[in-house]
C-alpha cells in the first residue's frame, strides 16, 4: 500500500490524542504497529513547553506524521493551518478537515473541496476527511487528492460503519485510489469490517486512547486490520437468503420409512 508514493506495510493509522499518559501513548503506538500517526497544532505560551516535549516523544519513534487541520471551520483557517503544519512538521502531507457541523463534526464538503484544490495546487499531498458521498469524492480527486478518507461515523462516536452501502459504492467507484476509513470506529470488528470491504487502511484514535487498556486495544485493532485485509484478499462469500448445506447431500444414507 502506498500514499503519495510512500510505501507502508501497516494499514493502521493511529491518532495521538486523549491517551492517559505519554508513556501509554508510546506503548500503544508500538503495539498497533502503526507507521503513520496523526498530530495537530495548538497554541503554546512562552512559559509552556508541552508541545516541545510532545514533539520530542513523537520524533523519537521515527514514524511518519500526518498533521491535521482539526477544529477548522473555514477554508481560510484550514489553509493557514496547513501551511503552519507543513513548516512545523516538515511534511507535505496534510489531513484536511473543514468542519461544517459542531455536533456531528461532519465535514463541510464544499469548503473541503475548495481547500483541497488550493492546497494541492500549492504542493500539498492532501488526505481529505470527507463523507462517503461519491460526487464529493469525485470532486476531491479532480482537485488533486490521491487518497480519500471517508468517515465511518462521527469522530469519537464509536458507532462503526454507519453506511456500509455508501462505503462499498465508494470502493467500487475508486478502485485505484487508496481509501481509508477515518473516524467513528469503536471496536476492532468495525476495523475488520472496513478492511473486508476492500478499504486500504483505517485511521482511529479514541477507540484506542480511551479504552480501559489502550495498549491491549491497539494490539487488538492491529490484529483486526490484518484479519480483515486477509479476508478481503481471500474473496469472501456473498450473503444469500436461503440455506446452502455445507455437508454433501449426495451419498446420504436412506434411513426414512
Amino acid at each position, binding site marked *: 500500500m502506498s500514499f503519495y508514493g510512500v510505501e507502508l506495510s501497516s494499514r493502521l493509522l493511529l*491518532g*495521538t*490524542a*486523549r*491517551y492517559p499518559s505519554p508513556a501509554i*501513548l508510546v506503548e500503544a503506538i508500538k503495539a498497533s504497529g502503526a507507521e503513520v500517526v*496523526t*498530530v*495537530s*497544532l*495548538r*497554541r*503554546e*505560551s*512562552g*512559559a509552556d*513547553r*508541552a*508541545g*516541545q516535549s*510532545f*514533539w520530542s516523544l*513523537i520524533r523519537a519513534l521515527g514514524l511518519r506524521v500526518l*498533521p*491535521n487541520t*482539526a477544529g477548522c471551520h473555514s477554508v*481560510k483557517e484550514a489553509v*493557514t493551518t496547513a*501551511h*503552519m*503544519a507543513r*513548516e*512545523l*512538521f516538515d511534511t507535505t502531507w496534510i489531513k484536511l478537515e473543514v468542519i461544517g457541523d459542531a455536533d456531528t463534526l461532519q465535514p463541510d464538503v464544499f469548503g473541503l473541496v475548495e481547500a483541497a484544490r488550493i492546497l494541492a495546487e500549492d504542493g500539498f499531498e492532501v488526505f481529505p476527511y470527507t463523507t462517503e458521498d461519491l460526487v464529493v469524492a469525485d470532486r476531491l480527486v479532480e482537485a488533486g487528492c490521491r487518497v480519500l478518507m471517508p468517515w465511518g461515523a462521527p*469522530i469519537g462516536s464509536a458507532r462503526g460503519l454507519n453506511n456500509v452501502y455508501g462505503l462499498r459504492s465508494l470502493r467500487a467507484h475508486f478502485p485505484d485510489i487508496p481509501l481509508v476509513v477515518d*473516524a467513528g470506529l469503536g471496536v476492532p470488528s468495525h476495523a475488520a469490517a472496513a478492511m473486508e470491504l476492500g478499504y486500504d487502511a483505517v485511521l482511529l*484514535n*479514541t477507540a484506542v486512547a480511551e479504552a480501559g487498556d489502550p495498549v491491549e486495544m491497539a494490539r487488538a485493532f492491529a490484529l483486526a486490520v490484518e484479519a480483515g485485509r486477509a479476508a478481503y484478499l481471500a474473496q469472501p462469500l456473498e450473503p444469500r437468503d436461503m440455506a446452502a448445506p455445507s455437508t454433501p447431500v449426495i451419498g446420504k444414507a436412506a434411513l426414512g420409512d
Partner: protein
Amino acid sequence: MRIFLNDDAHDVEPGTLAAALEALGYGGRKIATALNGRFVAVPARPATQLTDGDRVEVVAPMQGG
C-alpha cells in the same frame, strides 16, 4: 507597543516578529506563526515588522487524531 499573542496582550519594543518572539520566551522553539491571520514562515520572521495592535498566533506540535 501592544500586541496580542494568542489573544493575550503583551507590551513589546517596536520591531520584528522574530524579536518579539525572542523577547517573549519562544527563542529556539519549534513553533509556527501567523500574523493577523496570515502564515509567516520562519525565514520571513526577521523581516516582518510588527505594528501596534497586531494579532500574532503561535502554535506548537500537539496531540491530534
